[in-house]
C-alpha cells in the first residue's frame, strides 16, 4: 500500500467514523417523533377552566400555559409564565411579574390582559368552574388589576390558603385571539380530535421555553393520544410497541411486564392515593343500637385497626407495590405528612386487650359484647375493584382471628354511594381516595364535621364528639393563615387525632406504577399526575424507533 493510498484509506475510515458520530448525536438531539399513549376516557372538555376529569386534565397539562408550576418530581413551585410572584401578608393578594416576549400558539402576544381575562372568566359564578371554586375563599368579588403589560395583581375577598400553588391548575387563555381556547401557551396544541377515538396534539411553534443549549422545546413533534378504556388492549399495544407510556399501571400488569422487560417498568414509590375503611357512626342509621355503640367506641375501631395485617395487604394484594397506610396524608406528600406517626402494627393480642376494656370477651371462639351480642358486621365495597375485594377477604380472615365475623358485600357503585351517603344503610365500608393535590385545604370537605364527605358521620349540625370539634377548629385554623409553620402544626395535630381516634382506618398507600417504552428518552416517572409525561416538553423519541412506526 503506497503512502497516498494509505492516507486515502485512513481518511475514508475517519470520514465514516465522523459521519457515524455526527448522525448518532444528531438522532438524539434532533427534534421530531411522536409520543403515543392512551387515555381511559374521553376528555369531557377542551376548555381549560372547565376541567374536572382526568382525561381533560391530561390535555390541559400538555397544552395549557400556567403562571407557576409544581415540579412533579421535587414538589417545589417553579416559575413558568410568571418570572416571579409575591403573596401579600394577609394572604388576600398575589402579584405576578410576567415573562416578556411570550406568544400564544396563534402568534398573538401574551400580556397581563390575558391573565386578567382568565381570572375574570374563571371566577364568574355562571361558568361553574371547578378550578375557580378552589379560589373562592369568601363572599365578594375577585378584582384583577393590570399594573403594566407584564405585571398583574389579583385580590381576593378573603385569604386564600396556599394560593400560589393553586395557579398550577390555571391555564391562561387569550383575551383577544379569535381562536379562543385553541390559542394556547403550553408546549402542544390540539390539532385533531376524533370523538371516541383519538386526540392529536402538535408542537406549539411559539412555545416560549428553551433548553440549556438554547433550543426551543418541546423536542417531539406530536403527541398521539388514543381513547382506550380496556387496559388489556392498552398493555398489548404497549408490548407491541404501538404505545410509549402507561400511567397508573395495575400491579399484575406491572409484575408481568417487569418479569420480561424490567427496564420498561417504574415504581416511583408510594403515591398520594389511599385505601381505607370506616364504620357507620350516623346516629339515625337503620342499624341496631348495640352495633352503633361498637362503631362509636374508639377502642373498638382501634382494635379492628390493630387486628388488620397491613403488611399482608401490601404484599399479597399489591405484590409489595404499596405501603401500609398511616393517615390522611401519604408519606409521598413530603411537606404535609406527619412523620411522627407510624402505620398501626398488626397486633391481635393488643386488639383483644383493647376490646376487653370495652367489655368485649371471647365466647366459644366468638367475640361478644358486654350484652352478649356476637360481634358480626358487614363490609361493603364497590364490585369490580379487585384490589379492594382481595383486601376485604384478607381483612375478613384477620378479624376472624379475634373472633369477629365479617360478611363481605360487593355492591355496584351507584347502590354503594346511595347506601353510604343518603340512606346510611351500611355498617362498614372500604373505599379509596385518589388525591391529586398536596395541600390539606383540599381535604376540608372530608374533615369538617359539617361536610358532606365526612364519611363516618356527615353533615353534623354541631360536632358530636370533642375530637371532631377539635379537628374542625384545627382545619379552620390552618385555612385561615398563610403561615406555613402554623398550618403544618395544625394539620399534624389533625393527623394525630385521626390516628388516635381511627374514624377512618387507613389501610394502604398504593405505589405509583408506570411503564415507559425504551424508545422514550428523558422520562422520569413521578408520583404526581401526570406521572409519566409531566416533563413531556423535554422527552425525545429514539430515532430508530420512530422510523419503525
Amino acid at each position, binding site marked *: 500500500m503506497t503512502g497516498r493510498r494509505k492516507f486515502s484509506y485512513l481518511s475514508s475510515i475517519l470520514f465514516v467514523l465522523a459521519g457515524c458520530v455526527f448522525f448518532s448525536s444528531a438522532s438524539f438531539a434532533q427534534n421530531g417523533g411522536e409520543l403515543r399513549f392512551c387515555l381511559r376516557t374521553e376528555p369531557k372538555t377542551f376548555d381549560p377552566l372547565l376541567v374536572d376529569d382526568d382525561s381533560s386534565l391530561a390535555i390541559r397539562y400538555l397544552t395549557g400555559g400556567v403562571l407557576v408550576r409544581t415540579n412533579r418530581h421535587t414538589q417545589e413551585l417553579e416559575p413558568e409564565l410568571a418570572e416571579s410572584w409575591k403573596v401579600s401578608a394577609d394572604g388576600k393578594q398575589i402579584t405576578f411579574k410576567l415573562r416578556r416576549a411570550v406568544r400564544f400558539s396563534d402568534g398573538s402576544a401574551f400580556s397581563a390582559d390575558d391573565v386578567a381575562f382568565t381570572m375574570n372568566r374563571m371566577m364568574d359564578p355562571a361558568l361553574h368552574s371547578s378550578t375557580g371554586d378552589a379560589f373562592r375563599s369568601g363572599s365578594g368579588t375577585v378584582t384583577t388589576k393590570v399594573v403594566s403589560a407584564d405585571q398583574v395583581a389579583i385580590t381576593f375577598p378573603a385569604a386564600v390558603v396556599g394560593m400560589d400553588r393553586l395557579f398550577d391548575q390555571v391555564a391562561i387563555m387569550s383575551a383577544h385571539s379569535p381562536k379562543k381556547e385553541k390559542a394556547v401557551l403550553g408546549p402542544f396544541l390540539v390539532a385533531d380530535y376524533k370523538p371516541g377515538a383519538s386526540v392529536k396534539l402538535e408542537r406549539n411553534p411559539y412555545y416560549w421555553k428553551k433548553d440549556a443549549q438554547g433550543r426551543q422545546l418541546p423536542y417531539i413533534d406530536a403527541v398521539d393520544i388514543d381513547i382506550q378504556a380496556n387496559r388489556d388492549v392498552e398493555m*398489548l399495544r404497549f408490548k407491541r410497541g404501538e404505545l410509549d407510556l402507561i400511567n397508573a399501571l*395495575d400491579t399484575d400488569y406491572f409484575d408481568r411486564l417487569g418479569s420480561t422487560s424490567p427496564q420498561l417498568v417504574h415504581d416511583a414509590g408510594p403515591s398520594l392515593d389511599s385505601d381505607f375503611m370506616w364504620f357507620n357512626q350516623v346516629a339515625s342509621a337503620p342499624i341496631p343500637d348495640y352495633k352503633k355503640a361498637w362503631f362509636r367506641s374508639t377502642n373498638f375501631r382501634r382494635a379492628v385497626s390493630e387486628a388488620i395485617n397491613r403488611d399482608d395487604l401490601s404484599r*399479597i394484594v399489591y405484590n409489595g407495590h404499596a405501603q401500609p397506610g398511616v393517615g390522611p396524608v401519604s408519606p409521598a406528600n413530603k411537606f404535609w405528612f406527619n412523620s411522627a406517626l407510624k402505620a398501626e402494627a398488626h397486633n391481635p393480642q393488643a386488639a383483644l386487650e383493647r376490646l376487653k376494656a370495652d367489655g368485649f370477651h371471647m365466647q366459644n371462639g366468638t367475640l361478644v359484647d358486654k350484652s352478649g351480642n356476637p360481634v358480626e*358486621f358487614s363490609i361493603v365495597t364497590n364490585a369490580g375493584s*379487585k384490589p379492594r375485594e382481595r383486601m376485604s*377477604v*384478607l381483612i375478613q380472615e384477620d378479624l376472624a382471628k379475634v373472633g369477629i365475623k365479617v*360478611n363481605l358485600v360487593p355492591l355496584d357503585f351507584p*347502590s354503594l354511594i346511595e347506601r353510604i351517603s343518603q340512606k346510611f344503610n*351500611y355498617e362498614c365500608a372500604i373505599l379509596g381516595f385518589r388525591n391529586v393535590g398536596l395541600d390539606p385545604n383540599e381535604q376540608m370537605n372530608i374533615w369538617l364535621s359539617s361536610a358532606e364527605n365526612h364519611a363516618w358521620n356527615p353533615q353534623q349540625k354541631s360536632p358530636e364528639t370533642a375530637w371532631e370539634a377539635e379537628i374542625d377548629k384545627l382545619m379552620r385554623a390552618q385555612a385561615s393563615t398563610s403561615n406555613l409553620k402554623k398550618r403544618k402544626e395544625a394539620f399534624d395535630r389533625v393527623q394525630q387525632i385521626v390516628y388516635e381516634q381511627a374514624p377512618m382506618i387507613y389501610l394502604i398507600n398504593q405505589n405509583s406504577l408506570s411503564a415507559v417504552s425504551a424508545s422514550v428518552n428523558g422520562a422520569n416517572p413521578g408520583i404526581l399526575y401526570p406521572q409519566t409525561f409531566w416533563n413531556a416538553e423535554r422527552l425525545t423519541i429514539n430515532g430508530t424507533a420512530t422510523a419503525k412506526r
Partner: protein
Amino acid sequence: MKIARLVACVVVVAVCATSLGAHWLAPAGYARQFREAPGAPPSRAHLLGTDEVGRDRFARVLYGTRISLLLAPAAALVSTALAALIGGLAGYVGGIWLRLARAFTDLFLSLPWLFLLITVRAVLPLNVSPLVSVLITFLILGLLGWAASARVLATSADSLRNSDFVLQARASGLHGARLFIVHVLPNLKPVLYAQFWISIPVFILSEANLGVLGLGVAEPLPSWGSLLRELEGLISFREEPWRLAPLLLLIVVMTSFQVLLSNEEVTA
C-alpha cells in the same frame, strides 16, 4: 350418539361425586389462606396452585362445583314450577288469560335481566352469611328465570286444550283442576323436563356472569362465577394454564349437559 350420552353422563356423575367428596379430597378447605404462597403454581400441596390470596385452588374448584351444580338445578326447579303455574295454567284456560300471560311474559323477557339482577341483589340485607347469600342468589335467579319456559309451556298447554283426548275428557264431565292435573299436566311433562334441563346451564352461566361482576356468591364461599373472575386480565394462556381449570370444568360440564339435553329434547 349413545356413546356420547354415556360419556356425558359419566362426566356429570364423576364431577358431582368428586365435588361431594371435596371434604376428603381437599382437606385444606376453600377459605384457608396460605399467605406465604399467594398465586403459587401447582405443587403436591396445592394441585392447582393457589389463588391471589393464597387459597387452595383445587379445594375452591371442588367446593365451587358443589355449590353451582347443586343450586343451579334447585333454581331450575323453582323457575320451571313457576313456568308451569303461569304458562301451563294460562294455556289451559286460554282466551284472555292466555293473551295476558303472553303479554306479561313478553314484557318480562324484554327487561334487562342483568340490571334487574344487580338491582335486586343491591336491595337485599347486607348482613347475611355467605351460605344464605348463595341461596338468595340462586333463588333470585329461579324467581326471575321463568318467563322463557312459561311461554313454551303456554303454547304447549294451549295446543293440548284443543286436543281430542281433552275434548273427550270434557265431554265425559271432567273439568277444572282435575282435568288439568289428570290429563294436561302429564302430557306437559316432557316439555317441563326439557325446560328444566335447559335452565340448569343458563343459571350456572347467569351466576357466573354475576360472579364476574363481583355480585355473585359472597366470599369466602367459591362458585364457578367467582372462580372465573380469576381469568380477568389473563393475557397469555401459556403463562399460568392451571388457572384455566375452572373454565375447562365449566365447558366440560356444560357440554355434557347439552349432550344429555339433546336426548331429553328428542324424548320431548
